[in-house]
């Protein structure tokens, strides 16, 4: 297995220059998630208008995979609906649990498709999912399910 399949250029770019980093003051829902095995943490805030996601921001400490995942998530969900988020989430969760056997749909997942290599490393799947699960809870917390 080649390490570069895990650390795709896209992932390292997002890690170095994360999008949506820094929490917005105005938000409808918030969630804080911790990866108990390593102590990585992320706080996600979502600003919603009905089922419309106006903005998602995040802050936390974590590895390149979890930080890049939050950054990608910000870009993917900006001005999308919560329904679209759930479609993306299902798609991404399936990809993460595929053990490298699924070819990601780049049309749907955009930059998140670059995380396909993560699914070959079971210990890292949690890192990639951390911000996604936090965002799911933040949306639920906003009462807009």
């Amino acid at each position: 297995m080649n390490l570069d399949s895990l650390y795709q250029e896209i992932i390292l770019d997002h890690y170095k220059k994360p999008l949506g980093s820094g929490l917005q003051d105005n938000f409808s829902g918030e969630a804080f998630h911790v990866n108990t095995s390593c102590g990585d943490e992320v706080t996600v805030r979502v600003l919603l208008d009905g089922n419309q996601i106006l903005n998602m921001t995040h802050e936390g400490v974590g590895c390149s995979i979890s930080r890049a995942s939050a950054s990608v998530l910000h870009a993917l969900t900006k001005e999308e609906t919560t329904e679209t988020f759930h479609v993306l989430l299902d798609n991404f969760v399936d990809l993460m649990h595929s053990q490298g056997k699924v070819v990601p749909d780049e049309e749907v997942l955009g930059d998140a498709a670059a995380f396909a290599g993560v699914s070959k490393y079971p210990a890292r799947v949690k890192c990639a999912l951390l911000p996604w699960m936090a965002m799911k809870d933040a949306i639920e917390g906003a009462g807009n399910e």
Partner: protein
Amino acid sequence: MTLDLGQELKDDFPILSHKVRGVSDLVYLDSAATSQKPKVVIAAESNFYTSTNATVHRSGHELGELASAAYEAARENIARFVGIEPGNLIFTKNATEGINLVAYAVLNATLLAKSGDKRYNKLAIGAEDSIVITEMEHHANIVPWQHLAQVTGARLEYLKVDESGRLDIDESKFSKSTKIVAITHQSNVLGSVTDVAKIVRFANKVGAMVVLDACQSVPHFNVDFKLLGVSAAAWSGHKMLGPTGVGCLYLNDELLGELPPFLLGGNMIENVTYESSTFRSDNAKFEAGTMNIAQVVGLSAAVDYLKNVGMNVIHEHVRELTGAALKGMLSMPGIRILGPTDLTDREGLVSFEVDGVHPHDVSQFLDSKGVAVRAGHHCAWPLHRKLGAVASSRASFYLYNTKEDVDVFLAALDQIRDYFKVA
């Protein structure tokens, strides 16, 4: 040139010929988490099942006798290895269970004393008492005491870790109200070794019991619990070449007699009626139910293996490797070592941060070169917070590691900041 110890022993450990991700030679630097097993240990466990398997202390048939004899011979061997009598050794499933056994037994004593059983007044603790632990404990030696403090109202106090990563044994923390002092013999993060004799001296002055977490010490150097004078000590078998599923607990005569049992059930009783039960007064009081017999036998084979190599030889070898690793890492830019940077009162492992690269990414990169290290908070989250680290990577060494392993590790470590473009 003579072979180094690791090269000499490598063939005894079949797993060390594993190819990582199908290509790289394995450099196993995670022995502080669990050690690998020599063939003799694997064979001992297997042989027990093929030739002597039966439950112990219950059956009159021949296999029952053979199994009981093997189990008790193992107890004797393991006990002598740490300077204690076999009667003071209790088998558990791991060190965590050993520490919990003591904490819960004290809680039981407290409850029994409250219900009017005067035998337990001495052990009972309450709001006027304190439990002293240290800032460098593993969760296994924090959480049970936090719980005991919470439910009894006792105060939980911490001995601090100083700037250099060594324990500051501040005598003012020890007072007449101190009932329990629970400390690690060697930090699983910092590598620093505790001056147990000093702790015992201060604890004895105030009449407190000393509970020692010996997980990182027993595998690495000669330990004599009687000589150290601790009241109790817990350690795990799997970190000292033994199988998983078996841990050890030493209780001195006083605690062995006074502590009420923790787990209740078969084998630990003296008499049972529908109304009430009485318990064994010896170490059997703490071994309820069927034990991990084959694993105990395997652990005894591990002790034989360690004795054959010689604990002093192992200790010296691991110190050499640790010293070489420290030296290499100190000369590398962007590496921060957690814990002492010299070998004074410090053993066998090096935890570190790589500037700009998360420990998960560090360990993933090392894994791609065949090097297995641990990344995370190593079950010492409060200590990491104190040190200002979310997590760290940890390389730990044991008898089967070679100088070449350290070189491979250092060469890989040196490439990480380039790979993640933070150099």
